[in-house]
């Protein structure tokens, strides 16, 4: 019966009401304010810890690795002649997945003198980083590639956000191009030595230490699986096997991008 249900609560309600009324109003206000502060703090904490909006995919790599052509192919499918970029280019990209999500594709210049400043500018907004490698002349450039990759992997902002790292082994249409597996092995070997030399590097003159982060696990050889962020190796060819008029061979890249 209703009355029975209410009855057990009623005396409690009565006593509570009486107690509240007995209390000093100032004290009551204090309690309410404290509760409000706690609620607001929890609210803010929830909002602040959620990741800042990252909706950009960066195209990085050494000079002449094919980033701008890849940019053009992914966005419009056309072949465009390209020159060395000296500024970034950005455009919205529609992913080929069911959700149809769009994010911004940003093509950064690869030249040595411009690389640091553009990376600095865009790294916090990165949701995924496509690291473009020239597979044909990889053997000659392996140390520069590894050094750039090391800088990326040890960057504090990137380590915090852990975007997806896609290593796109470009220029597969050239016969001498190395496969993605080989490139992965070589990079692992090179990064193995690099992390030792970099952490032994001199500290800066104002006291900040240069090589702070040690990649991977100590004692074991470096492997990409040891990293906190996901690293994938894909093969692609921005020029395409048929030359300028044919389509580009970027399907695996687009598939990986669609998974984002």
């Amino acid at each position, binding site marked *: 019966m209703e009355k029975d249900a209410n009855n057990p609560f009623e005396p409690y309600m009565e006593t509570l009401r009486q107690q509240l009324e007995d209390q000093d109003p100032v004290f009551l206000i204090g309690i309410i304010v404290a509760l409000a502060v706690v609620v607001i703090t929890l609210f803010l904490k929830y909002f602040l810890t959620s990741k800042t909006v990252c909706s950009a995919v960066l195209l990085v790599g050494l000079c002449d690795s094919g980033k701008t052509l890849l940019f053009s192919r992914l966005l419009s499918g056309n072949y465009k002649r*390209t020159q060395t970029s*000296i*500024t970034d280019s950005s455009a919205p990209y529609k992913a080929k997945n069911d959700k149809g999500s769009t994010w911004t594709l940003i093509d950064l210049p690869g030249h040595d003198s411009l690389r*640091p400043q553009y990376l600095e500018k865009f790294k916090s907004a990165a949701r995924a980083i496509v690291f473009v490698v020239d597979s044909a002349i990889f053997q000659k450039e392996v140390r520069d590639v590894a050094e750039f990759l090391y800088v990326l992997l040890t960057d504090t902002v990137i380590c915090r956000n852990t975007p997806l790292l896609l290593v796109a082994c470009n220029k597969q249409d050239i016969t001498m191009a190395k496969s993605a597996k080989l490139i992965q092995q070589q990079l692992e070997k090179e990064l193995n030595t690099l992390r030792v*030399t970099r952490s032994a590097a*001199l500290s800066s*003159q104002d006291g*900040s230490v240069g090589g702070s982060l040690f990649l991977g696990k100590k004692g074991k050889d470096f492997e990409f699986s040891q990293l906190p962020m996901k690293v994938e190796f894909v093969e692609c060819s921005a020029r395409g096997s048929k030359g300028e008029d044919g389509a580009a061979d970027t399907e695996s890249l687009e598939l990986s991008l669609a998974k984002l």
Partner: protein
Amino acid sequence: MLDFFTIFSKGGIVLWCFQGAGVTESFTGPVNALIRSVILQERSGNNSYTHEALSLKYKLDNEFELIFVVGFQKILTLTYVDKFIDDVQLHFRDRYKNELEQKGSLKLLNNSFEFGNEFKMLLREAEASGKAKSPAPMRSFKESEKSQKTVKSMIETKGGDKGKEQSGKKNKNTKKDAPAAEAAKGDQVKAPPTVQKVTVENGNQGLTADEIMLKKREEFFRKHMAAPPEKTSSKSPKPQKPREKPRRVWDISGKSGKSTKTLDYSDSRNGEDSTNEGEPNQDVFFDQVSAVGLCLFSSKKAGGFGGMFGMLKGLVGSKNLTQADMEPVLDKMRDHLIGTSSAKGISDQMSSYVCLAVASTVKQALQDSLVQILQPKRRVDILRDVMDAQIQRRPFVITFCGVNGVGKSTNLAKISFWLIENGFTVLIAACDTFRAGAVEQLRTHQRRLNSLHPPEKHGGRPVVQLYEKGYGKDAAGIAMEAIAYARNQSFDVVLVDTAGRMQDNAPLMTALAKLIAVNMPDLVLFVGEALVGNEAVDQLVKFNQALADHSMSDKPRLIDGIVLTKFDTIDDKVGAAISMTYITGQPIVFVGTGQTYNDLRSLNARAVVSALMKA
């Protein structure tokens, strides 16, 4: 005549290109070389560049972020190219204004820019105008001045007339004095002003100078047609007073053209004057900034000044920001504020606030540019290079050079300590055979280092050894022997210490160049002290020059890196770092901050620049 012409965006997408008939090679390579060496280095004064057999001229369009490049054979000297590029740029911009104005690169990718017909037309025009420099036709006697004169005027009269006439006729080649011609009206008896002979400075200006010539000739004929009727009226020329020399206007002192009247700020322009004086620091900073070169920052928008000053946006927009641009803007803003009857004090404060806001933008841009200069252009990882040399079973040779007393031997010891800490064996070559005590100094360092890292802990072999041959011997020979010894005994690193020498001392510079050319070290480090100031530029330039001159090969070994020493003696006067890096383009590899073995650091570009900008 042209080999190619390209228009591409700064992001690297080629919008339109043209390849001349019969040209088979792709132009991508030369244009990339142009971009890398000129545009990115930001050091060029002129806008041309040569690459193998091609000569390239370029033009930047900062508003739409485009680059126009034209290439032609170096042996041809085409005079119309500069004007041609300007014309093409204007036409292209006008035609594709809408597409180019859009943000984002999608439009650039999706559009195909059809420009071929217009380009051909412009090219034809330019070539035609280039050819139309036919020599000036000779005047017939009827047209010349002599036929116009009456016989009477040529008769000698009292006064200095005839003398003036004769001298005037003789001075056919003097420059036309335009103000004087205007001042002496009706004075055509006097030496007729001759056509100004415009000295063509270089082929590029030939076209415009011709236009000047044509214009002047027209003026002259015009004046001359008016002259004869006047002449017949005055039968006897009066004695003319001597032609006054026009007052010279010196452009250098103060502002050109402004007389003392305009410099009198006592009445209405009071506000401006006081504002200018109120922030002397600001103006001095502006001068410094503009001296560094505001053109380093292309397309720096000065920020919309807010809704109230929207009209000023058109003035500033997104051009290169120069001080000349700033002044009219600030003046106009002040006038506008005063015109809207805001108090004068407030308008002064607002203009100073704008000054500050622009100054902070400029400061940020300057900071970014300085950091970019100081960033190493290539990897600076000596340990990695030493490891590479280890794998190849050869020693890694580092040579230290510099002027007297900068700290070569001390920093050599510090670097060898660092290398030993990382497990390498070092051979020190004492190639300073001149200074008394140099060899003993290095021997003392060797003993100390060996006691810090005893041989027992490193496989029974001393980690540091000294290779010396006493004093007075040839340094290059000692270096060569030391390297051979290191190879035999499989040392990892050889550090070669040379004697200090002034950059003006030619025989010593030759000796150093010979040492480096003969031994081909892996790394040539220039040791410079941080206190040096303007001397640094001179030292580095002369050292590099000497190394380049005396090397036999076509790829001479130049300075590869800089060691900046005595960094602890300066507080914030770190400008030497900037000037050294800028002159050579090479990175600062080590920074010495004291005299013990631990006082070796690497350079933190951001910290140095912030210390520099704190002033």
